[in-house]
């Protein structure tokens, strides 16, 4: 029996082969439109309060549905309705496919993972992986929040000239907000509970990035 701590570390590790290196969590278009290094912590906070909150809540509700044998269609619809950017929905589904590819290999006998189809959002695939790993809802929500903060931080090191220790400091400083986010969304069980916390500026950046011909990151 593997401890939940180790399984959470496995899923949170950037070395997990899920194409994480292709993602900037919209930091690249933000920098292109003038966001400076000093603004990155605020960008992280904004994401945790909005788009990442939606993703974490969606994952938690999907985990509840998986563990109670409920269909996931309503969860996917609730997520899509709260993710108005078509580019962000497409990115989530691509990342979901990458994660599903891996999860199917790691847990080939898991029914929840086997039940997922192409087009599942990343939050829902992550919930299935969390179910297979035996993680609880709070751990899953922390995973979503932590991964988002680290994605921004890693992309910042590519896009802005920064001391990597400074970025690690930003990640450390954001962790209490990740804990609060996890505590808020962990009890949620129904699709209607998922907060509708959009961030029009981030969504507009995602849309413009999808059509630019110059980019390092996929999204």
């Amino acid at each position, binding site marked *: 029996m593997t401890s939940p701590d180790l399984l959470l570390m496995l899923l949170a590790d950037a070395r997990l082969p*899920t*194409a994480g*290196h292709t993602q*900037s969590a919209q930091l690249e278009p933000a920098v292109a439109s003038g966001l400076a290094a000093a603004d990155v912590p605020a960008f992280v906070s904004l994401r945790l309060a909005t788009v990442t909150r939606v993703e974490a809540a969606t994952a938690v509700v999907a985990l509840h549905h998986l563990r109670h044998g409920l269909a996931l269609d309503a969860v996917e619809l609730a997520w899509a309705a709260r993710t108005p950017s078509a580019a962000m929905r497409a990115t989530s589904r*691509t990342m979901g496919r990458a994660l599903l590819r*891996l999860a199917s290999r790691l847990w080939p006998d898991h029914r929840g993972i086997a039940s997922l189809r192409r087009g599942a959002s990343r939050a829902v695939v992550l919930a299935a992986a969390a179910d297979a790993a035996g993680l609880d809802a709070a751990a899953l929500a922390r995973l979503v929040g932590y991964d988002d903060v680290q994605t921004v931080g890693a992309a910042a090191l*590519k896009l802005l000239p920064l001391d990597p220790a400074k970025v690690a400091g930003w990640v450390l400083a954001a962790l209490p907000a990740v804990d609060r986010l996890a505590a808020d969304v962990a009890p949620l069980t129904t699709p209607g509970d998922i907060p509708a916390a959009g961030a029009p500026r981030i969504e507009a950046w995602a849309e413009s990035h999808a059509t630019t*011909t*110059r980019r390092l*990151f996929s999204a």
Partner: protein
Amino acid sequence: MPDTPIHPSGRALRVGVCGPVGTGKSSLIALVCAQLAASLQIAVVTNDIYTDEDARFLRSAGVLDPERIRAVETGACPHTAIRDDITANLLAVEELEEDFAPLDLVLVESGGDNLTATFSPALVDTQIFLIDVAGGGDVARKGGPGITRADLLVVNKTDLAPHVGVDAEQMVADAGAVRDGRPVIALSRQDAASVAALTDWLLGQLAVHRAGTLVPADPGPMAAHFHADGTAHAHDGAHDDHVHA
């Protein structure tokens, strides 16, 4: 070609094309498409570093339906995307294979990188490494996993050799000397015989793939090297049973 035997897995031959920036990867792919698109079903994945320049170049070359050319962004990690986390490329290859089934050939172009960047055998079945005469006559002697152990080494732009003061024949001979019998093609778009040698090699790889006997090999990360005791060997992972201090 409905009567053509296909690979036991039923999928296309996946060919990697890698090599330093500016050696002619996109041009080689355009050349292959121009030569073979009438007889084979082909698709292309490009790994651009900062722009979709390569994908746009290939689309505008008019040698392939633009829908069959897809770009993968690598987050400034072209090496990662073809070796240690190949997920984004695999997804692009699989989507093309599904959208245009049945494909015969998928060409995966790496982002222009350094001499150590080669494809994982989990991503491609066989790979071509490119260098060119304009990059300097000494490049072949420098070696590296791509030059020494890629399935095919192409020394490109041989028609430019007189203009850049490089002895192309010597460069090809140098390459042959470090490759232990693996094939080398001196390529010029102006030289029909060299183009035919390239397409013949590809068709040969396709035949072996369809017969189910093509075993993908990793050229790197370690090239063959010498020990103080005079023995030489290559690291290929499968037989790597000794320890280096």
